[in-house]
């Protein structure tokens, strides 16, 4: 029997003048793989920050992994939630190697005053193996390509041994091959480690095909949700991105507009 791991009710979040979420309700069952898609500024990232407790609710309620998310329990919640953001440029001279960066995933779980032991390094090496980065384990982190950095970020996230796996545009700015590889890896990890995964993207081609459910977001609201086959129709996408249906059809088939 599945249990609800995320239950957000009528969430409103605003940053200064901008309202990022305008009353979003959202449920996720344990083991689901949910794709969240929508244009830039739709509130997708904000929805993820509500889940890991970094976003501040103006009103509404969020229950994640059985706890009501509040200011107090943010730290303990985040230890159980893995978060992979999009590739960011890292100082090429940063004095840390790949293995050390993956170990950061263990730091929250370890807690204050405890140093990583042999068990933690074992987990780190296992995760590096899983994402195919063992050969670069001792390379300075700033020397990696975007695709390699995302693999490291995923390994760091898994080293946390999270219950929830949040990915925020993990393939943005990656080349076509790296994108496909990361999508494949994410799906494999989701299945083999029995995670609950939320995958955010603005790019339809970066949505893993095997999502159990797709959520469409626009202007701080969830406009619709359902199975990918039913939901990702040309008509729905034309509404989501404010484009004529014919343009959507052309783009989805990879045609060059006349």
């Amino acid at each position, binding site marked *: 029997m599945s249990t609800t791991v995320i239950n957000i009710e009528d969430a409103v979040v605003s940053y200064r003048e901008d309202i990022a979420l305008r009353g979003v309700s959202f449920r996720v069952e344990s083991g689901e793989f949910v794709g969240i898609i929508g244009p830039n500024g739709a509130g997708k990232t904000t929805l993820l920050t509500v889940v*890991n407790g*970094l976003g501040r609710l103006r009103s509404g309620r969020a229950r994640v992994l059985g706890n009501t998310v509040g200011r107090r329990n*943010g*730290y*303990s*919640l*985040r*230890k159980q*939630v893995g*978060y992979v*953001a999009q590739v*960011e440029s*890292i*100082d*090429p*001279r*940063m*004095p*840390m*190697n790949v293995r*050390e*960066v993956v170990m*950061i*995933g263990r*730091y*929250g*779980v*370890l807690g*204050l*005053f405890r*140093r*990583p032991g042999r068990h933690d390094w074992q987990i780190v090496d296992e995760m590096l193996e899983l994402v195919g980065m063992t050969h670069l384990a*001792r*390379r*300075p*982190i700033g*020397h990696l390509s975007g695709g390699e950095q995302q693999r490291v970020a995923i390994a*760091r996230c898994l080293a*946390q041994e999270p219950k929830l796996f949040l990915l925020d545009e993990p393939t943005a700015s990656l080349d076509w091959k790296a994108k496909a590889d990361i999508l494949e890896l994410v799906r494999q990890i989701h299945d083999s480690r029995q995670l609950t995964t939320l995958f955010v993207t603005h790019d339809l081609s970066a949505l893993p095909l095997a999502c159990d459910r797709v959520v469409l977001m626009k202007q701080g609201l969830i406009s619709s949700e359902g199975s990918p086959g039913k939901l990702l129709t040309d008509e729905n996408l034309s509404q989501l991105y404010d484009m004529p249906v014919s343009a959507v059809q052309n783009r989805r088939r990879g045609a060059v507009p006349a």
Partner: protein
Amino acid sequence: MDLSIFSYQFMQNAIISAFLGGIACSTIGVFVVLLHMPFIGVAMSHAAFAGALLGLWLGFNPLLGAFAFSLLAAAVIGPLADRGELSPETSLGVIFSLMLGIAFLFMGLMPGTKSGALEILWGSILTNTRGDIILLAVVAVVVVGLVFIFYKEIQATIFHRDMALSVGLPATLILYGVLFLTGATVTTSLRSIGGLLIFSLILNPAAAAYQLTYSMKRMFLLSAVFGVLSGWIGLLFSYLFDIPSGATIVVTSSVIFMLAAVFSPKRRVKRLKEPSVEEAYD
């Protein structure tokens, strides 16, 4: 060369002060360099300078004024850096110039000779007392001790603040802690190194270490070694050529930085068939 000078109490005090101040400043420097906020040191040291002058003018302990002002600067810099409302360079630049302005304002308002003020500006490690040394020792032990205890939290925060937050670490608290320690270090080193020059003793050793290693632990160690060497070699030159010690210490640290930059393996353009980075640094 007559080195009997080193048997005098005041010189021994100076040597110990340079050791302790060098360690504290250069450890703080690693944060400043890796957080890409070099202006923190400038803004803090000028805030401390302004606070010390307020103390001199109104007749209370200049160190108290310096500490209060650098904490005030930390309280302003922290939220600005944290929320990213302005770029850190911009906000620190504003605070730096404001503090310099306030310092000169206090100096202008001060009656009589300004020798006390100038001493704080230039530093006078040769007149350090036992009390100064104890204070420096306390700060050095606290700084090094906290880095040791919270190494993993500090390392993660330096690497990426948002990532540190997302794995459940108190990254914001760590950032404020670093700012607080910077204020404390600047304040206690103010009399020895001087408000104008302390910034280079914070920045140069760490920037030199940054050129030379891909290991953060080694960077902390190298930075401390360079900081202490800057102090000791600077003292020696100050004595040999009879020039102000603050200046020789800073010039020495700059020379160390330049040497490190010139010989930095991180600058070398990679040729085919060269040992890989991980082989070179393991």
